[in-house]
């Protein structure tokens, strides 16, 4: 008896997704929990693990193809079993052949098992090679495709739709939780309260309603760092390259941000001679390498410690005052960017912070970030210094209230006490959400940041 694996709804309300990469091939033996495919949605690439053990009989979609959530993507069954669907099977078998399970008199849920079992066993092979003709995953269709006796109800998740209890739906909405990676432990894999208890504890403001649009997407500086298309002959028609999901998301979210968030900008120059000297000293002494960016992020956290009232974000219901300093780090990809969040930066050592940023950046480039690692945060840092950019301004990544655009440190003439000297200077531009920050607050915060950078030991303190 084979099982059809369907495209999961890895994110709530996502209607289509693509297999970015198959991690198994036809003929492979798979076990429950084994990584099966990488599923790409507009927001994230998620590793999809097998929920059924058996032999992969056939992969039904090619890597990169977008298909509807719920459409069949693979067939798993016994080794040697044919994946070819018996052509007439799904429709020709009358539903009535599903034997009725007579309800047990003492079982208070007596009627339930019949329905559950019928829905759960799409037992005849799914159409193997024609995803377009595949039945939809709706529960109503499934029983009519069943030509074998209904299996006893199990807790195996039903393909196609994730079950989430009403309570969890509400809590996820209120706390801005992503349930993509949550494994449901209730019947049919339903996500129930206990499955999100850890997430609730981690949520930045468990008691306050979170902003409507959790930010898991790229912000800001979006230095579309694409390599130009291969040279084409002059006069040739431009080639239409379909948008990736990430590109669509960047376009949508940044447009929203610019349209809806009233940005204002403050620029400052920082002397970074002392900072660079300290960094050289640390890197010469320790085994851990510290980057300028790590120190900048740490200084940002320090500035929030100096001006704690700035650590707040706008929501329609009220101002969210944050305790922890959670900072988004813009990480550029080959074509796009992601902004993973480092949480509790104020409590991390520079080396631990550096290790976290490195890990997030690496996983971000590999598409391995979990959605919850890209959600929330009150502020972000975008650093294009490594490209030699002198200064730029970045677009805020809602719901964050600000983003600091960091340029390259460069030697230039500076005047100190009326005398000209050569110094290393780094320009930074703060983009702030005027709904959350006023000009004076932003100025105080920026001054605190500059002070930390220019007195780098305070960054370590």
């Amino acid at each position, binding site marked *: 008896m084979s099982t059809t694996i369907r495209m999961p709804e890895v994110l709530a309300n996502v209607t289509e997704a693509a297999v970015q990469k198959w991690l198994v091939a036809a003929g492979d033996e798979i076990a429950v929990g084994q990584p099966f495919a990488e599923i790409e949605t507009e927001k994230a690439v998620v590793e999809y693990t097998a929920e059924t053990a058996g032999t992969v009989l056939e992969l039904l979609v090619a890597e990169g193809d977008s298909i509807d959530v719920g459409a069949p993507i693979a067939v798993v069954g016994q080794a040697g079993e044919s994946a070819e669907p018996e052509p007439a099977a799904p429709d020709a078998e009358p539903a009535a052949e599903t034997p009725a399970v007579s*309800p047990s*008199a*003492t*079982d*208070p*849920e*007596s009627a339930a098992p019949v329905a559950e079992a019928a829905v759960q066993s799409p037992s005849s092979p799914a159409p193997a090679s024609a995803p377009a003709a595949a039945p939809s995953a709706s529960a109503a269709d499934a029983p009519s495709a069943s030509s074998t006796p209904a299996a006893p109800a199990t*807790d195996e998740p039903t393909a196609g739709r994730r079950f989430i*209890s*009403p*309570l*969890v*739906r*509400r809590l996820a909405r209120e706390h801005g939780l992503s349930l993509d990676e949550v494994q*449901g*432990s*209730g*019947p049919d894999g*339903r996500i*129930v*309260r*206990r*499955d999100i208890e850890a997430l609730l504890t981690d949520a930045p403001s468990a008691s306050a309603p979170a902003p409507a649009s959790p930010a898991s997407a790229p912000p800001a500086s979006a230095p579309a760092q694409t390599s130009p298309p291969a040279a084409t002959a002059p006069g040739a028609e431009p080639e239409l390259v379909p948008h990736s999901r990430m590109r669509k998301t960047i376009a949508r979210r940044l447009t929203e941000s610019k349209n809806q968030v009233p940005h204002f900008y403050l620029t400052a120059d920082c002397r970074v001679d002392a900072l660079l000297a300290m960094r050289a000293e640390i890197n010469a002494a320790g085994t851990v390498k510290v980057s300028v960016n790590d120190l900048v992020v740490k200084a940002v956290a320090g500035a929030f410690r100096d001006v704690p009232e700035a650590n707040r974000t706008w929501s329609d219901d009220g101002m969210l005052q944050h305790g922890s300093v959670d900072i988004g780090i813009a990480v550029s990809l080959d074509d796009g960017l992601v902004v993973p969040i480092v949480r509790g930066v104020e409590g991390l050592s520079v080396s631990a912070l550096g290790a976290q940023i490195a890990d997030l950046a690496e996983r971000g480039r590999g598409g391995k970030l979990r959605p919850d690692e890209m959600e929330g945060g009150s502020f972000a840092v975008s650093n294009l210094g490594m490209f030699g950019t002198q200064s730029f301004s970045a677009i805020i990544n809602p719901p964050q209230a600000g983003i600091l655009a960091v340029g390259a440190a460069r030697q230039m003439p500076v005047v100190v006490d009326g005398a000209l000297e050569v110094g290393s200077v780094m320009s930074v531009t703060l983009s702030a959400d005027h709904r959350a920050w006023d000009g004076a607050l932003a100025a105080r915060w920026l001054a605190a940041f500059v002070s930390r950078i220019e007195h780098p030991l305070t960054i370590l303190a």
Partner: protein
Amino acid sequence: MPRQRRLESTAPWVELSTTAADWKNADPALLATMLGQLHLIRAFEERVLELAGEGLVHGPAHSSIGQEGGAVGSIVGLRTTDAVNGSHRGHHQFLAKAITHVSQGKLDLTSLVDDTLQGVLQRTLAEILGLAQGFCAGRGGSMHLQWFEAGALGTNAIVGGGAPMATGNAYAQKHSGTTDLTINYFGDGAAQIGSVLESMNLAAAWKLPVCFFVENNLYAVATRIEESVADTRLSVRGQGFGIPSWRVDGMDPLAVHLAMEQAAEVMRSGGGPAVVEAEVYRFFHQNGPYPGSAFGYRTKEEEAEWKKRDPLDRVAREMIKLGLIDEAGVQQVRDQAIAAMDAATDNLLEADPDSQGKRRIRPELWPDPDFVDVGVRGDASELAELRAVEPLTDTRERESMKFVDAVAGVMERRMGEDERILVLGEDVHRLKGGTNGATKGLATAFPERTLGTPISENAFAGLGGGLALDGRFVPVIEFMYPDFLWVAADQVFNQIGKARHMFGGQNPVPLVLRTKVAMGSGYGSQHLMDPAGIFATSAGWRIVAPSTAADYVGLMNAALALGDPVLVIEHVDLYGEKDEIIAGDLDYIIPPGNAAVRREGKDVTVISYLSMVKHSLEAIEQTGVDAELIDLRWLDRASLDWETIETSVKKTNAVLIVEQGAVGTSYGGWLADEIQRRLFDWLDQPVQRVTGAESSPSISRVLERAAIARTEEVVAGLETVRRHAGGAA
């Protein structure tokens, strides 16, 4: 050859007709009043048919045209404190009683309608049209006319349905020390129905002053009397119950009056009930303005013969013969009646602006749609002055007592304090407190108020309903087993449950119905239901289901004080339990809206009542699930403690409703529905339920056990909850 001796019934049975001497001896004022009433009723009924023909009467209009003589003859001599009730064809009886009441029994034919009487005619017509100014606020319409002040108890659309309640009213009259009487009117179609026959028997056994007045108009809709009975003289029914009976020509109002005088003498003097059969004829079909012959079940010739006996003509002819009136005088009486109806009609109708030449109801006279549920039950304000106690937190000394002794104890205490309380049911006065001892001591302390009834649940439940509507007594009815509610279903649900709302929402129905759940006792399929679900889904009833003796005291006291019918559910498993009450206090109430949290917990809200509260506690301990257990106490829609349920569910996010009985008639269905709609976003799993099987419990011990829920089933229910919470499967 065996010897035979002819047996005679002990009850007299006579046919009565008038002679010329009777007319001559009759009080001219009586004859004039009868003529006036007959004409008022005829003009009224003609107007109703006219409006029905214009489509202005919603629903059927059962005309009494042709039958006025029976009602007028029997009612014209009654007191205001005498009472009548009737059937779907009851305009004539209602009007006769109302007119007799407002005119003090005397009409002046030269000035037939005064302002008060004009008001009665208009309010009656308004009621039939369904308007707010009607006697029942437009709720009752043609078939449910009630005016207590005039002694009109309410007409009834269930054939025979009014007989038990009339019997109850007669009980109240007799036992309040009056010589008043009650007449229950019904037709030939009802003379064969159970509640009428049960009521005749009960009234005869208890010598109650109620007259069973059958208007034999020969047709039950279109079925002729010969098709329905062997002896078409329906007053023969009295012979079977030992009730003196009269047969009389109903087209002769004086004959009816004389028969009723004789019957009233029996009733007022303590002789018990009477049966009066009046032969009458409705000139029209069952309802609407067409003769029966138009429908082919009788001939025009037959109708013409009966029309010659029109009671209006008969009285006029006799009065003219005696020189009491002339033809012009009769015409003036008719003209006055028509003018009165014109005036009433003009106040209720207006020209329809949308339809040339048509009339419509004046729009401002309709009831407000918001009135739809007003008065389904009272607002419980009658409990406001009573002392409420919460046994959970009350710290006074306790006195140990078996549960069943608390049942009998609190009733004895209340009966001692309140002489209105009357206990009735099968064997409640014998066997040392009925079959379970729940009425122990009452028959000794209050023999005249502890009534063992014949086995006729419809009659004694309805008698209780009549007592409750009357208000001089507070009946406590016992059904030995809950399943008997089906036997008495008409009285329990159609009459008692609906009486307050149907007749306008004003008049209280203070009644307590006790019954015991007996699952586990081996009484089988027809005795072992839990009635909570049926009553909870039937409007009008409140329900309590105590799980402890101390709760029983407070809940029974509240039930007895409420102006609504209250079902008190007991359980045989609880009767024998060693329990405790607050020492020396049998007088407090536990008001509606007070559930008890028996155990606090965070993982699931278990909602239960009655004996299943203890089973739930056991199951919670066995499974180790950290459950919060709510003992509902009050079960009906209006009395449920929503606040406690909502607070708990918002904490636990899971619900398990626990009850013992069959899934079909279960209580939890409506509650689960209500919870999922009120608390959807707080639920982490479906509302789970523990119930019995689909079948009724069988006699076989094994099958009975399999059909009901006890601790083991609650354990299974808690495991289901746990699995749905992501716990061990």
